[in-house]
């Protein structure tokens, strides 16, 4: 590349300013564009782990062209080059020493590079089924395929709930050939919902990792096993957030949050949202039972006993299925502590938090417990 050497105007005391000619600039610009094409082109060829290095080398050549010629570092003072170069040296320090931790933590996180991610059938790509809640032979066939892979182990090849793992599962996996026990109704939307959310506490995991259309397909197949399903009302669709008038697989179903994220959000909200007021315990007119008594009877008595005396043997409370714990009496605490315990629970002591109660409800409950203990 040629540069026109241009002498600054004399009055400035003879400073030398280099002027990049239009021609050189254009040449560099074109080189940069060609190199961009090279980068894109090479990305399409599988060079294994070298793809990354090639991409970085090309990017660095481009960066050098920009820095040396466009920014004229080539003809600039050495100290400016050192200054700019130093930034990359310190950046390298940042990289190297941070990674000396992150990638050497025993086996905690360390994983070698370049591990290809195994593709999951039907995951990537555009939805194949429009309005997937409408049953078609294609979607049914697709559902059957998925069922064979995802569901057979528990629900059995025929959907009788007798897969190899079924014996160990309590509650038992659903028998799709029975119309019994469909809590939410034997409806397409409700099966879809179960697939999305799982049934916490049972062996039914969430399959939200499957795309919505796949879940629709499985739901279709499962219901096809035993006679016609109940009709889905518009309200049912609304419940799962699907607009049946929309085109794509999820309808306007808000795309599923990964279960993990959803659970965590719910969990988080519970601890923060102490002021949310649910009002099932409003004083009923004509009954002698106050709000506090109602709450106690429905929410507390099962563990703490009728008179807050404790000592009840409790199974399967939040922790492990077979843990047997004797509850303790409700202690003599002041109202502030009482409120805190009710709202947050006693983590580690199996006492669950009840963030849904309002402060006034807790006050009523507190007064009631005090009368019980007298």
């Amino acid at each position: 590349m040629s540069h026109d050497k241009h002498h600054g105007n004399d009055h400035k005391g003879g400073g030398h300013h280099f002027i990049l000619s239009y021609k050189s600039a254009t040449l560099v610009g074109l080189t940069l564009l060609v190199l961009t094409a090279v980068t894109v082109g090479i990305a399409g060829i599988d060079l294994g782990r070298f793809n990354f290095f090639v991409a970085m080398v090309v990017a660095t050549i481009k960066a050098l062209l920009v820095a040396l010629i466009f920014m004229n570092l080539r003809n600039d003072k050495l100290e400016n080059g050192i200054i700019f170069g130093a930034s990359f040296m310190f950046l390298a320090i940042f990289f190297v020493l941070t990674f000396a931790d992150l990638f050497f933590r025993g086996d905690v996180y360390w994983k070698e590079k370049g591990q290809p991610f195994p593709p999951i059938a039907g995951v990537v790509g555009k939805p194949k089924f429009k309005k997937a809640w409408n049953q078609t032979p294609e979607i049914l066939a697709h559902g059957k395929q998925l069922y064979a892979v995802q569901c057979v182990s528990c629900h059995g090849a025929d959907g009788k709930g007798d897969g190899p793992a079924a014996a160990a599962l309590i509650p038992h996996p659903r028998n799709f050939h029975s119309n019994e026990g469909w809590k939410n109704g034997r409806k397409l939307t409700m099966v879809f919902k179960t697939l999305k959310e799982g049934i916490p506490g049972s062996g039914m995991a969430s399959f939200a990792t499957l795309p919505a259309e796949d879940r629709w397909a499985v739901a279709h197949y499962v219901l096809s096993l035993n006679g016609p399903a109940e009709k889905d009302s518009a309200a049912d669709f609304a419940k799962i957030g699907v607009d049946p008038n929309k085109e794509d697989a999820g309808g306007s179903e808000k795309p599923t949050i990964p279960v993990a994220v959803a659970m965590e959000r719910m969990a988080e909200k519970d601890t923060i949202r102490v002021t949310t007021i649910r009002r099932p315990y409003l004083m009923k007119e004509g009954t002698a039972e106050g709000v506090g008594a109602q709450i106690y009877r429905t929410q507390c008595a099962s563990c703490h006993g009728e008179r807050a005396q404790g000592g009840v043997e409790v199974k399967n409370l939040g922790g492990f299925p077979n843990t047997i714990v004797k509850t303790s009496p409700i202690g003599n605490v002041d109202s502030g502590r009482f409120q805190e315990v009710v709202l947050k629970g006693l983590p580690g002591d199996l006492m669950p938090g009840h963030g849904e109660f309002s402060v006034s409800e807790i006050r009523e409950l507190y007064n009631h417990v005090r009368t019980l203990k007298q």
Partner: protein
Amino acid sequence: MFSQAYAAGLPIAASDIASRWDSLYNFLVWLSVFFFILVVGGMIYFAVKFRQRPGARAKYITHNVLIEVLWTIVPLILLMVIFVWGYVVYDDMVRPPSDAMEVRVIGKQWLWQFQYDDGRTTTGEVFVPVNKPVKFIMTSEDVLHSFFIPSFRVKQDVVPGMYTSVWFEATIPGKHQVYCAEYCGTSHSQMLAQVVALTADQWESWKSGKQLLGEIPKAGETAVAKVAGSSDAVTTSQGTTLVKAPNLIEQGQKLAMTRGCVACHSADGSKLQGPSWKGLYGHEVILSDGKKQKVDDNYIRESIENPNAKIVKGFAPLMPTYKGMVSELEMNALIQYIKSVK
């Protein structure tokens, strides 16, 4: 002699590592005293001796290569000695013996929860035998905490989403104070616990779960009273009653069944949809990309929460995620169970 004299400033040294730590610390203290006297003593001496007086003339000295080299090299050598010494002790501090008893620790705002292999959990107090190595495998449910036991001179941050560990071998029975040393919010300073190091007799009582432990004093102090009685339960010194629960492995086994794990993972080595757990833990598996992966706590946890991240070769990525569906307590039980399938 020195260490005895200075030990007054330190908490009781209740483990072998703690005694070795004290030696290093005391060395540093006396080294510091030496250099402090050298520098500040020198300063005071010069300030008095060369104070401005009538007729006094300053000498023109700009440098002296010999002394400058000396005071560069000598500290450097000393520092390298200190570094090596520090690293050797540290290395033993963080490497537990393979036969260490394991207790799982969960830190949350603002308490410590302990989970034993026999399935019991305690809060605020952890019971360990003396003269046996104990390893705590720790995680946090919310924010950073740090598990700090001054008597053993150990401390380790407890990080959510990750397991860290700390180990010690108590040589003195009694209660050892535990602090949370990483700021964690409002009640950070109340996030305390006790490591209760039990003598062989007490440890048997605790293990059998049949006897009251009675009053256990602070380590290094004599017991006030030692009540031994018979009861169905072990009473911790905080009054929590613990009834015998299935041990951690049984809990894990139960969970593996109820959560459907066993549908795909066998415990007897037979190949189902997923790898068998038999002999899995502690060994290396070949992943689908040919890489090797050691099966440890973090890998099992990752495989439960993010199953498709590292698929064992020869298996399809079918497993759904259980992230958010397994509590920390359950996760520990599952890992412990999988570990036990030999």
